[in-house]
């Protein structure tokens, strides 16, 4: 029964372009879907796209031709500004790692930022359906976060984990953890 609680889909959104990063099976599924649809590879970073139009017109009975200027736009790299990796550990009431009823699952969401940093980073993760969030179990880089929407970065209403990391200055990994109990 445990696999149906896998995986939660976690989101990491950044201020400028709401890039969403999913993890685990969802990511693999997306990759398969792209391959199946024969989606074209993305334009390589650094590619210069040039637009030029040809024109012609009639003057004094003659058709004359010309060409416009060349407008260009450079394709930016798509290397992720950040990535999010989700992992889990299970601890059953009997002390084993069996996903039995009453077991506690600890999820870890590790957000890794590129050297350029990021602005307005937010991690969101719905509490997996059917599980119960353990109040007060949220941490950020090992420090406890309260569930209330208050002064600290995290809040959880029992259904959605939300941790506002704010502006991230440089290459760094920030890790959020929270726990749920299996029914």
């Amino acid at each position, binding site marked *: 029964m445990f696999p149906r609680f896998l995986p939660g889909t976690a989101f990491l959104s950044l201020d400028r372009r709401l890039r969403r990063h999913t993890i685990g099976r969802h990511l693999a599924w997306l990759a398969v879907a792209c391959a199946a649809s024969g989606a074209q590879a993305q334009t390589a970073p650094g*590619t210069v796209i040039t637009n030029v*139009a040809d*024109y012609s*017109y009639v003057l004094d009975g003659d058709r004359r031709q*010309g060409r*416009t200027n060349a407008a260009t*736009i450079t394709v930016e790299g798509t290397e992720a500004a950040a990535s999010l990796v989700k992992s889990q550990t299970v601890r059953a009431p009997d002390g084993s790692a069996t996903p039995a009823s009453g077991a506690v699952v600890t999820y870890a969401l590790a957000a890794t930022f590129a050297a350029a940093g990021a602005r307005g980073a937010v991690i969101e993760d719905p509490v997996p359906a059917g599980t119960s969030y353990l109040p007060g179990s949220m941490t950020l880089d090992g420090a406890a976060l309260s569930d209330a929407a208050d002064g600290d970065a995290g809040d959880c209403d029992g259904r959605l984990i939300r941790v506002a990391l704010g502006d991230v200055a440089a290459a760094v990994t920030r890790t959020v953890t929270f726990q749920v109990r299996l029914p």
Partner: protein
Amino acid sequence: MRSNALITLLLVAAAAAPVSAAEPLRLETRILAEKRVAAADGTTRVALSPATRAGPGDPVVVEVRYRNVGRQSLGGVVIANPVPRDLAYRAPRTGPAPELSVDGRSFGPIASLRVGNRAATLADVTHVRWRLSDPVTAGGGGEFAFQAVVR
């Protein structure tokens, strides 16, 4: 003497050349990107501005403006814009919808175009073309634009 005359003739020809070659129809193309602009009241609106960079998947607008800077009306104006390979055509943006082509030779609405033995899609479009039905009068002009997305 003779060579001097020849040189004079060449100089006159060189000076005259730009005048005779003056293009009465001026065209300019630009690539624009949509940018969200935050207003003081907290709302955002989408503004178009010339762009130098865009990422794969980003929408862009390709614009062609034309103006008759000559003294005579110009008839039969045709503007043919090959769609850059790394852009995918999406929709008309400004002015009448262009005719579309998937081979640069035959043009028409997308529903009339085929690639091999299948119906063409907008991603297959390789060229767009605008044909002006009315002459462009002296001093007149206008613009066309289409939406595309970076592949």
